């Protein structure tokens, strides 16, 4: 039997007031009518807890758009789970934070699109910056720990020092600087998002210096730009190993992007229990462990470290979800990634607004 998962990523809705072109949500967003009900989510949390999950990440889209959010927080909390609210901050009023804190939110992860108001609001597609600054203050006032998450790409990587300074100013305990992962809208907008080698080279020492300077005050987690690396990321720490995702319509996914793998038969919480899906479904067992691997992964010692990389990326770039992640220098398809870098990684030929904005309210 597979080991129990530690976390549930609950994508409560795909609706969102923001329109980030880097959003990793799928291109086919779940409509409001198809969202799970409050009762369904309560049952999902019950099942996740009895399966072993101890962390519930409430995300989306924008989770604050669900009027039942306080009730869902209270329910996850009553089960003994650690409740993490992942939000753009838009809609996080003082009262809202107070209610959510009282119901049992343990931690807030706030996204920030850029260092300045102008940059932030251009990427977000709406005036969001001032509301994020306010939201951060409300979170701190309730005594909740705050992580700021900024997704990095060609449009904001040059402002990395300013982003770090802004996160400090907001009072974050942690800052995640996550280079864009190319799924969903981000994949669609890759040509305006891919950073240049020069940008990454300039950013690296700035991040390292800030990590040293802020040690003990603000932890900075830097997520690499995997297209530019020689080895893939340890995606999800293995397929069906630590976490499961439930999409707004109840689809249960081994990783948030897995709906792109068209060969995968996706299960839904409306027709099966999480226990059955986690342990017995073909989708969760498809890439579990090491037996599914082909060479070079199969005979590579690094498979214990990176699990062969990302299945969604393998599928997206090679058409075979069981292939070695093509960002790996040992992959026979690495040339595909190199070609993308050569042809797309140019200084923005077009302004950021040329991105397809992710829109669904």
């Amino acid at each position, binding site marked *: 039997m597979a080991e129990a998962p530690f976390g549930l990523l609950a994508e409560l809705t795909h609706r969102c007031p923001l329109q980030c072109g880097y959003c990793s949500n799928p291109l086919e967003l779940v409509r409001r009518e198809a969202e799970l009900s409050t009762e369904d989510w309560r049952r999902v949390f019950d099942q996740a807890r009895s*399966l072993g999950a101890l*962390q519930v990440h409430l995300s989306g889209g924008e989770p604050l758009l669900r009027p039942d959010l306080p009730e869902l927080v209270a329910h996850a909390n009553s089960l003994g789970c650690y409740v993490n609210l992942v939000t753009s901050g838009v809609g996080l009023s003082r009262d809202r934070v107070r209610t959510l804190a009282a119901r049992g939110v343990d931690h807030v*992860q706030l996204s920030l699109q850029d260092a300045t108001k102008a940059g932030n609001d251009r990427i977000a597609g709406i005036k969001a910056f001032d509301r994020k600054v306010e939201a951060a203050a409300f979170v701190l006032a309730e*005594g909740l720990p705050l992580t700021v998450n900024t997704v990095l790409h060609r449009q904001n990587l040059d402002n990395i020092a300013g982003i770090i300074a802004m996160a400090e100013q907001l009072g974050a305990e*942690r800052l995640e600087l996550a280079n864009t992962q190319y799924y969903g809208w981000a994949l669609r907008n890759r040509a305006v998002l891919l950073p240049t080698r020069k940008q990454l080279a300039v950013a690296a020492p700035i991040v390292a210096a800030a990590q040293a300077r802020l040690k003990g005050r603000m*932890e900075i987690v830097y997520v690499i730009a995997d297209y530019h690396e020689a080895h893939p990321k340890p995606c999800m720490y293995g397929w069906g190993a630590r976490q499961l995702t439930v999409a707004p319509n109840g689809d249960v996914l081994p990783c948030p992007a897995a709906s792109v793998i068209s060969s995968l038969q996706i299960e839904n919480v409306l027709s099966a229990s999480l226990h059955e899906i986690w342990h017995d479904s073909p989708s969760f067992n498809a890439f579990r462990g090491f037996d599914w691997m082909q060479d070079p992964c199969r005979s590579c010692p690094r498979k214990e470290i990176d699990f062969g990389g990302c299945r969604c990326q393998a599928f997206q770039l090679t058409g075979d979800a069981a292939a070695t992640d093509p960002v790996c220098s040992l992959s026979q398809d690495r040339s595909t990634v190199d070609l993308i870098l050569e042809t797309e990684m140019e200084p923005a030929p077009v302004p950021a607004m040329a991105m397809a904005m992710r829109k669904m309210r």
Partner: protein
Amino acid sequence: MLEAVPRIRRGVKCTYDQIREAHVVLFPEGVLVLNETAASVVALCDGVRSIGDIAVVLADEYSGVEPSDVAALVSRLVERRVVDVDG
């Protein structure tokens, strides 16, 4: 190091997991499943007792607990951002 006073960080939750039948520490980045000794140490990281004090308490409960073992465990917990130390 033995005078250092460890304290569970803000935003970190310590509970017992009925499913795994183990004490666990929950924090934004993850979950730590604790063995019995580690659970006893975590329970004593109250911001008052020093590492030396914790070792004395544990010596009553378990045989062969060295202050250096406690110090090593605490520094691993600091690395995982589960506890802070003053002093």
